[in-house]
């Protein structure tokens, strides 16, 4: 499996560290409803099919990436920058995933 890093280009999966489900959002710390925090920490949709997930390019540019990958076929349909560089892939590399 290879991931097309927007910064470094196509790289082997061994360069990346998996960061899990990319759709969960940490509730604001002012939220006192336990269920919201339990859902964030423990509960996952775990789909068979397209899955939005985070990967850390730990052996490369060290950017966090938001990857859409099919969990049955391992086909990757989109890779974009996550975190503070979100949406800036085109500016950094001149090309998307």
């Amino acid at each position, binding site marked *: 499996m290879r991931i097309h890093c927007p910064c470094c280009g196509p790289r082997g999966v061994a360069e990346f560290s998996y960061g899990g489900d990319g759709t969960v959002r940490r509730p604001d710390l002012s939220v006192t409803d336990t269920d919201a925090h*339990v859902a964030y920490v423990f*509960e996952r949709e775990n789909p068979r099919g397209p899955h939005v997930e985070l990967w850390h390019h730990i052996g490369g540019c060290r950017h966090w990436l938001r990857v859409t990958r099919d*969990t049955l076929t391992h086909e990757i349909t989109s890779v974009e920058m996550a975190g503070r560089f979100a949406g800036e892939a085109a500016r950094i590399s001149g090309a998307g995933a």
Partner: protein
Amino acid sequence: MQKYSALSLLRNALSGHRDWQPAWRKSDPKPAYDAIIVGGGGHGLSTAYYLAKEHGLTNIAVLEKGWLGSGNIGRNTTIVRSNYMLPGNNRFYEWSMKLWEGLSLDLNYNVMFSQRGVLNLAHTPSQLDDYARRGNSMRLEGIDAELLGREEVARMVPGLDMSPNARFPVLGGLLQPRAGTARHDAVAWGYARAADARGVDIIENCEVTGFLREGGRIVGVETTRGEIRAPKVGVAVAGSTSQVLRLAGVERLPIESHVLQAFVSEPVKPILDCVVTFGAGHLYISQSDKGGLVFGGDIDKYNSYAQRGNLPVVEHVMSEVSAMLPFVSRLRLLRNWGGIMDMSMDGSPIITTGPLPGLYLNAGWCYGGFKATPASGWCFAWTMAKDEPHPLNAPFTLDRFQRGYVLDERGAGPYPKMH
């Protein structure tokens, strides 16, 4: 059921082995049962067996999407052990060990349970301290555990690289002498035959496509072979847990599905008479009766439903095994394969009533499900029959994550890829 014995073998030999009965019937689904088990793997079949044997519930069906035992019961590395530290875990797995010890007799089927010992290697003084702590915790629960020094390990496993110049020199190990291996397929077949003999219908090629509800209660399943009704539906489908429960409207669970690869080498003469695990990485290896070395390592560490893995893990596992047992580097790999693990958020299983009325869940086995097969079925049967958990599986609830009672043997936190 035709009883297997030396006499029956002799009698059938004299008649040219033409009179053996099939080990279980090919059942067609009836419109209704007292209970349904979804999943004809080890855990589903053992649940059906213990429901019939311990609780007198014989009007039950086991529904299997493919053929019997086509999932993880036939894909694992066959290791049986109860060397856990946390009381919630080691009591349960020790009960499993006790059931294993009488299983072949109980089922009248040779599951080839071989108590050859499981040895965990230690490579640092702190790891040895940690093993001593785990061994003490086991012995407090009446489980056998022995701390071995370097010389004892070298005597026990002659093929190990015991060189002080090894990248990770071996300092000692923790041995559980009663642990060992079993013939994995025979476990599925033995439970299927014994359950069938007590009247359980085992229905293969019958995929569950939906759940029947009445007033918020699950009252049966829709399948590719029609509707089947039952007041109790137990789900034991390992890596497909999230998929199946989504059909019942349960969208989120503390489970991720990951692929675990396993490997077998070409057969060689007897060289390894126990199970050994590498302590400076994650590797477990034993030798099958056919002579192949059977081993595995880490999961691929990303969500996957593909029953095949990636090459970086293959390379990693091969480098570990050849670091530990250098002679293995000269053997050829015969096969490798993958199975889908239901990795839970704390690395411990779930055997519980719910999450909906009429539904019962058995899941979250990570990659330790095989050794649990007897106790998992035994406890799940109890839970389904009495609508409450047995004390042995009381810690394995679904709401433990909510209540803060996680059972994190490894202390790795809520990261399924780490367990």
